[in-house]
């Protein structure tokens, strides 16, 4: 952050003509929208977490009851655990695939371009469409499993609490790997070709080039992509809402879903607001943590791409 700030400040001073730059009022409309519909609600959710509200009637002060209720609830503990698991598994599945595909599609051969065009089709689909497609596809009776004649594939994928999490991680990867592949493709194309030429002369093989040139050069791309992926995993709501509805039982009820169900189905807006506050805190904490990992001198770069 400070980097951007100091840069823009320096830029201001460099204008030696001595006249003022553009009016700060130009930023006012954007700021107003953002304050009104993002910052104000963020503060509002903190306030609402101390109240009781059913979504329609009057709002009454509730003190800390929602907080103690939510923090001691086993559903909250489960949903935090589910959120952590989905975040972890989808991260370790998506990142290597995206990096490899990014490197692969950065090549200029014709057939790779054709492949890449098809790879990016999932970018166009809404989470609702993806979830509905996979629900049909995974059906144990008339989905793809029985069609292939492999009993292993004809499982009740979405009905088995032990399997469903991995199905969810797979569907998430199907939908989001293309986007991260695109980011890595851009990163790889920015690596100067001279580095590879030098390595070639030194006799480095393909794997060595990948490990010693490509990966280190992609450091900041990795941070950008990781930030988006980790913070974004708090936003898998739509996909999971349509795909499993949090079930079976509460085995895929991750935090945002728990919040929705608590607020808009059980009509406990106060308790849901507590979950909202927890979401905000987790989101900001993760972003700051990843920013740290990027190194202090670069503490903005990864967010710049976000």
């Amino acid at each position, binding site marked *: 952050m400070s980097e951007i700030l100091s840069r823009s400040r320096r830029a201001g001073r460099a204008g030696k003509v001595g006249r003022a730059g553009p009016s700060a009022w130009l930023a006012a409309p954007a700021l107003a929208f953002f304050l009104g519909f993002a910052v104000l609600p963020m503060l509002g*959710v903190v306030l609402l977490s101390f109240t009781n509200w059913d979504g329609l009637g009057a709002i009454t002060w509730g003190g800390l009851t929602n907080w103690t209720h939510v923090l001691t609830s086993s559903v909250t503990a489960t949903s935090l655990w589910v959120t952590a698991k989905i975040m972890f598994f989808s991260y370790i599945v998506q990142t290597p695939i995206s990096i490899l595909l990014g490197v692969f599609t950065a090549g200029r051969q014709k057939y790779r371009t054709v492949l890449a065009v098809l790879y990016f089709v999932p970018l166009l689909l809404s989470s609702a469409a993806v979830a509905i497609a996979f629900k049909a596809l995974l059906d144990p009776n008339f989905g793809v499993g029985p069609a292939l004649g492999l009993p292993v594939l004809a499982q009740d994928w979405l009905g088995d609490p032990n399997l469903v999490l991995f199905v969810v991680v797979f569907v998430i990867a199907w939908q989001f790997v293309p986007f991260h592949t695109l980011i890595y493709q*851009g990163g790889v194309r920015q690596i100067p070709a001279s580095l590879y030429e030098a390595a070639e002369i030194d006799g480095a093989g393909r794997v060595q080039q990948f490990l010693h040139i490509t990966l280190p050069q992609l450091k900041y791309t990795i941070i950008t992509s990781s930030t988006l992926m980790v913070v974004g995993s708090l936003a898998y709501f739509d996909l999971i809402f349509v795909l499993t509805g949090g079930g079976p039982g509460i085995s895929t009820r991750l935090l945002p879903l728990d919040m*929705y169900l608590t607020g808009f189905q059980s009509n406990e807006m106060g308790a849901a607001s507590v979950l909202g506050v927890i979401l905000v805190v987790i989101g900001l904490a993760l972003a700051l943590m990843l920013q740290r990992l990027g190194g202090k001198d670069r503490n903005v770069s990864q967010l710049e791409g976000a």
Partner: protein
Amino acid sequence: MPSRVADRDTAPPPQENVRETSAAAAPTRRRRNILGGLGGWVWLVVIILPIYYVVITSVKEQAGFFSANALLPPADPTLANYELVLHNQFVRYFFNSVVITIGSVIPALLVSFMASYALVRGRGRFLSWTNSLFLLGLALPIQATIIPIYYMITKMHLYDTLLALILPSIAFAIPITVLILNNFMRDIPRDLFESMRLDGCSEWSMLWRLALPMTRPALVTVGIYNGLQVWNGFLFPLILTQSPEVRVLPLSLWTYQGEFSVNIPAILAAVVLSTLPLLVLYILGRRQMLSGLTAGFSK
């Protein structure tokens, strides 16, 4: 990413580099990447199989659906499912999606562009504070704020209107838009502004006559990105609307799922129909879209 951004400025086409060297150093560089190729084809199957399944199922007759092999194309494809969906208000949902997408993307670009110009070229505590706030906004999960937004929208008597979807969508598009625009705005050479100023241009005309053309590629990129986000958005429509008159496409899929619960081919026809417009746009503007997104996000 300052250093790399600088590289890009002076040596604009990294792509060209790759092409040249791979051509020049062909004998050494052309060792076959068998593993990469294999992985690439495997992933293609992973991507294509669900799409194939959706498309062939959508042209199957509902009656034969349960008995037929799911992976074989139907002997006699039918468009009846599409007809059914189109008769169920699909056009209206499509039109609503168009309205909220255009209604959010254009204002978001406009206010973000003006803000970015001020943030990059201006100075002062107010602007630096604003910039930090937008950066912070990137890490803010939309879901967390949905209850207060619901409250506000109800109080503003906008519940169940398209405007209820547009206003928060603009707000949540701003941080990323400003950030990507900042990255491009910063690369406009200072001299250009100076010489325009010497010619007596006002800041306002520099904004439109210099900054706008120079950041046009970034505007297109981030416009496409935001457009996809709004078009495919599910949460705001789910919570802030109710009537079929203001229903948008992603939500309509969800409701079709309830209405046609036993008619899977019809639901999948709706999935195809909802994706078709974007697919057409993708085929037409693929190069622009992909290269824009790649540059925008890796810059």
